[in-house]
């Protein structure tokens, strides 16, 4: 992985839990609206008013790809974007079980793996989040601002 590569990250304190990311993801990939069809999932604790979007983390060692017995879980070596070769997928769910983040799911209608493809480099979930609770940026920038806001919270004068 290139150290300047971009990743999707979420800021739970900003997330409203509106599910626009799920709904727009679902529409753009499937022409239909359903959280089940979305490649990003909002984890929701309604009694605590807490929502956290979770999606593929683009692991350096993608176990979903490693465990796939038929080579259906792949990514583009040039752009890095993931692709599920649906014609190869046999629906064995090894990838779903292997993913430690719960970011891979099954497509409810097609019975094949469902994984974030980064919308070919312009993820719609990030673009359309109404409060910018999702970011798509090189990791080092995200970490930098996290460091900065933490230090700022110390109120040093």
């Amino acid at each position, binding site marked *: 992985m290139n150290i300047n590569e971009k990743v999707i990250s979420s800021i739970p304190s900003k997330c409203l839990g509106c599910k*626009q990311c799920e709904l727009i993801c679902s529409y753009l990939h499937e022409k239909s*609206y359903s959280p089940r069809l979305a490649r990003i999932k909002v984890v929701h604790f*309604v009694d605590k*008013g807490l929502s956290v979007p979770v999606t593929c983390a683009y692991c350096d060692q993608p176990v979903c790809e490693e465990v796939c017995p038929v080579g259906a879980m792949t990514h583009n070596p040039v752009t890095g974007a993931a692709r599920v070769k649906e014609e190869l997928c046999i629906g064995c769910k090894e990838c779903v079980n292997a993913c430690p983040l719960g970011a891979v799911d099954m497509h409810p209608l097609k019975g094949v793996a469902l994984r974030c493809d980064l919308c070919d480099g312009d993820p719609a979930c990030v673009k359309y989040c109404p409060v910018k609770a999702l970011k798509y940026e090189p990791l080092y920038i995200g970490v930098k601002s996290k460091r900065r806001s933490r230090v700022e919270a110390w109120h040093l004068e």
Partner: protein
Amino acid sequence: MYNNTGDILHVDLNKKTWWKEFVKKDDLLLYLGGRGISAKILWDLVKPGTDPLGPENILIFGAGLLSGSAAPSSGRTTVTCLSPATGLYMKTSAGGYWGGELKYAGYGHIVIHGRSDKPVYLWIDDANVEIRDASSLWGMDVRTADAAIKAELEDDDIQVSVIGQAGENLVRFASVMFSVYNAAGRCGAGAVMGSKNLKAIAVRGSGAVTAAKPERFHEVVMQTRENLLRESGIEGLRLYGTAGSLNAVNELRIFPAYNFQRSCVDDVYPLSGQCLIDEGYLKRRVSCFSCVIGCHRFTTIDRGVYAGTYSGGPEYESLGALGAGCGIMETEPVIKANELCNIYGMDTISAGSVIQWAMECFEKGVIGPEDLDGEELHWGNAVAVHKMIKQIAFREGFGDVLADGVKRAAERIGKNSYQWAVEAKGLEQSRVDTRSAKGYALAFAVNPRGADHLHTETFAEFGLSPESRALIKKITGDEKYASPRLTEKRAEIVRWHEDCFAVTDCLGFCAFSTTALYGVTPQAMAELFSAFTGFDINEAEIMEAGRRIVTMERCYNVRLGETRKEDTLPWRLMNESTPDLSGGNTVNSQEELDQMLDQYYDLHDWDRATACPRWEVLIRLRLRDVAKELADLGLLVKPF
């Protein structure tokens, strides 16, 4: 046509059976969905003479037509039945995530018939419908029951609508709670649910919602989203919540305090959305399903006597009713009172209203400590308020009197206490002082469910934003009518808002997106309806459908015997002013109201004396069956 409206699921709790009904194309075009179709079902099935808390009343849950889609702020659900508070037509609605989930399960409406002999809850798992035993859930508060159901069904993402103890004990302003903290609060739908021994409806939907013309629908969704996000008021509403407007509302002297004896408070800050943030009570901002605004709050109290308190809200109305109305000007006791109302499952507006009425009774010596288990129910006594909320939910002590609503309580206590029972048609009024807002005054008077703002939100009459001034100009032809003390053109303003609100409710939109912010326009709603259903209708036609629904709701009350004389306002707001108001009409006089009512009925072409829609109007609106039934009952003259 793609069947994306969702079916109507009927459940008979007497026979423990259920069946499905398809929504007919004609009904879809005439009544749009959600609230409209529910109103039609209620008209057909619940006739005059029905006991609201008897098994013959039905309880209708209607998801918005567009709920489940990405249309911004379209996830609201309407609950409709004969109201145990007013004995009249009622609809009440809630946000949360339940409506979208119901659509994903394949349903648009649920109609509950009859009464179960023991506590049950309904479990809808896509096509599978199950009536399950709820004896272990009976007696639980809303939050506990929600968690228990999720544990029993082994899925934390199930969406639940549920009643608390208030609903079980038939408190006439018990709410149905959705997604834990979203209340369908007004008019006592929770008591109807309780009367049916129905604790909850749990839903899991794994399907999808697809527009008939997906590309066109998506295009309008994205435009509408951008419109809404460009609104001048959206940032403030998200940042500070509904209580962010409190400063302005207090300045305008329309913020009732001490049971409407005052029209503002000296220091509104402790009750404001700004204070919730500054003092660290606000933990997170929360959206309902598909909403890009995010006005809902999640608050906690971490220290002090109220440590451990957590809940959704408090919202503007709750801070007004449980705070200023009761003379409580501190933040924490109001956050606590809000939590109690939410978990017992009762309307914060009515709960606050009945308690402040009792406080005034106490201050005037009409009731004493001997009526209140020794409590001194003085203004601002937060401990007594919290105790009373619990007593209402469990119908203990004086709480049993208050649990029937302020109208019945005043009838029982007597001694002129009706004069400070701030209700109309039996519904406790929401927190706007209509003495300084004449559009609201007219809207509240003609509201079929009683004096409140959720059939017609005429906030635009204050002209506080460029968008609201533009709307007033669109309706009346001149921006100068954005002036709340004027009575001129209020009929026109109210009618537009009624129609728009009905369409809003049918499609599942939040009134904040259509009549507080204005980013979701009637034209956009017509375009969304067309692309979603595949049946093209324009702005005029969708607004006419709104008018049809409003008219049908009016006719429902006419059939129950309502006439013009019930279109009135609370006694206090018709007869007393406050020290905070000055200059001109600071009371809603009968003369002034009559003038506005005449204009309003004329505009609708309704009969001035009976407030009943004329035969011709009903025929024009394609409500022939309604017209015939009213004529047969002798309530309407059929021309020959």
